[in-house]
């Protein structure tokens, strides 16, 4: 199961990087979204996948799920959600002011 999840995360990472290297804003933003999904899936896998066990540590119980990755992912999901929505608004404003959504045309030079 962990192997399968790791492969899935790696596919997500690859598509994310591919999208990040594109020139259009929207593709890049989709790239960041996929990147955060990949990171979260990866984090979940790293805490070892177990089903049907409560994340409670009682004396004598050895088979319990690790609650830490869930806590980390929750925090991280909230953050990446906020950043993505900000990024969309910023991209829209940049597009309306600069009249372009192509990174090639937004290089900028020192003579401005």
């Amino acid at each position, binding site marked *: 199961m962990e192997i399968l999840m790791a492969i899935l995360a790696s596919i997500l990472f690859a598509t994310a990087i591919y999208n990040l290297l594109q020139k259009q804003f929207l593709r*890049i933003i989709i790239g*960041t979204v996929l990147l955060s999904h990949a990171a979260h899936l990866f*984090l979940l896998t790293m805490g070892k996948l177990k089903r049907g066990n409560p994340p409670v540590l009682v004396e004598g119980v050895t088979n319990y799920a690790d609650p830490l990755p869930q806590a980390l992912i929750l925090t*991280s999901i909230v953050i*990446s959600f906020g950043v993505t929505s900000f990024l969309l608004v*910023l991209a829209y404003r940049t597009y309306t002011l600069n009249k372009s959504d192509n990174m090639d045309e937004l290089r900028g030079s020192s003579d401005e």
Partner: protein
Amino acid sequence: MSNLAVLPIVIPLIASVISAFIPKKLGLSRFIAKLFAIIFLVYAGYLAWVVFTDGIIVMQASGWAAPFGISIVADYLSVTLVLITSILTTAAVFYAPSSLSQLQESYYFYTFMFLMISGVVGAFLTGDLFNLFVFFEVLLMASYGLIVLGGGKVQLRESLKYVLFNVFSSMLFVTTIGFIYASVGTVNMAHLAERIQEAEQAGILTGLAVLLFFVFAIKAAIFPLYYWLPNSYIVPNPVVSALFGALLTKVGIYSILRVFTLIFNHDIGITHEIFTWLAIFTMLFGVIGALSTQNVKLIVTYNIIPAIGFILMGISLYSSAGIEGSVYYLVHDMIIKAALFFLVGALVVAAGTDDLRKMGGLITRYPVLGWLFFIGSLVLAGVPPFSGFIGKILLLRGSLEQEEILLTVAALITSLLILYSMIRIFVRGFWGDTVEGLPEGQNKKVRHLTIPAAVLLAISIFIGIGAEFIYPHVETIANMLLDRAEYINAVLRE
């Protein structure tokens, strides 16, 4: 265990929330900002005094003992940096009203600024790797708000790139934390430090160390990952640039200093050897950038990069002289960078342009600004007896002790070129013939902009001349970083 350690994060947060409710009442929000900045300054001074007399203070959030809960650790290095941050906050609050337009100020400038300060302080104080990521995000979210403030065409374009780089490095950070948690089973820094010494698979851990270094190197602008920095730091208002230049990259280099002295020092032969080369290239390429341009803001911005190189140089040496030099240089650079950004902000107002070719003869009209700029350049380049000199002499001594000749030569050349790049502004901008068409009636504004910078310069000169007083504290910090046992015991055993 004490709640004293968490208050430096809470005070700016409260200020941020209060000023979010009164953005349009400028008089009141300025007053609140100044009040809280001064409370923060006094409190940070008190905390530093307590920590240096009584030892490290650790707060375990909600009473969950480390390594299960989140630890907030006020050790010697953290409280020193918190104190410097509070000084810069106070200076920025007094600088901002003259530098920003009223419209910009009323669009939540103080809210974002205090939120960013809260994140920076949190990053300095946290004793937990994941918590470090959270505080990075807090300060980055606030910095996104600050960098788009004003919303010009160029500004938005560069902001977008800045945000994208940071999103990428943040996600890489989370992934690295996932790797570390999987291989060592903890994210508490003190606990990590213990477990990594016992761990068997040193090769994997070295790989993870380099990955983590990559994340921090993006934030700290280390060669070859500094290309995002110059353009995105010159677009916002000078007060924002000053805070970015003095605090944000320093949080990155602080994280490297912390992680690679406390946690990943099991394989110095590989990691710290990489640092040596990167330090050389960071210093040289940064200063070449500063020489390549005629834009005064860009010259100062490029000078952030060699400073990071100097601090990395001390970390790469990993000896007591090297770490002492790094800490001294870090403290010195935070203050002088803010002062120089403030002065350049005043210079741009006085000259009406940021192009060095269109300036000249400003010294007749603004003598105080001119001479302050001259002193600031000397402080930055490390001319004795100013503060940069003490840091550099420690670094060079450490470097010569280990016979790193190339590193020493690179550091010396860089210092000389830094002086040249800054003096160029003084010679071209302040001397020479007075150019036509200087903006009139800016004297009052320039004077208001010069005062906070002058105060910061005075502090910077004190750090140099008062080395007798400062150096023992720096020695305490370096001993704690190299010995590690004090930190680990404070977090895990109390």
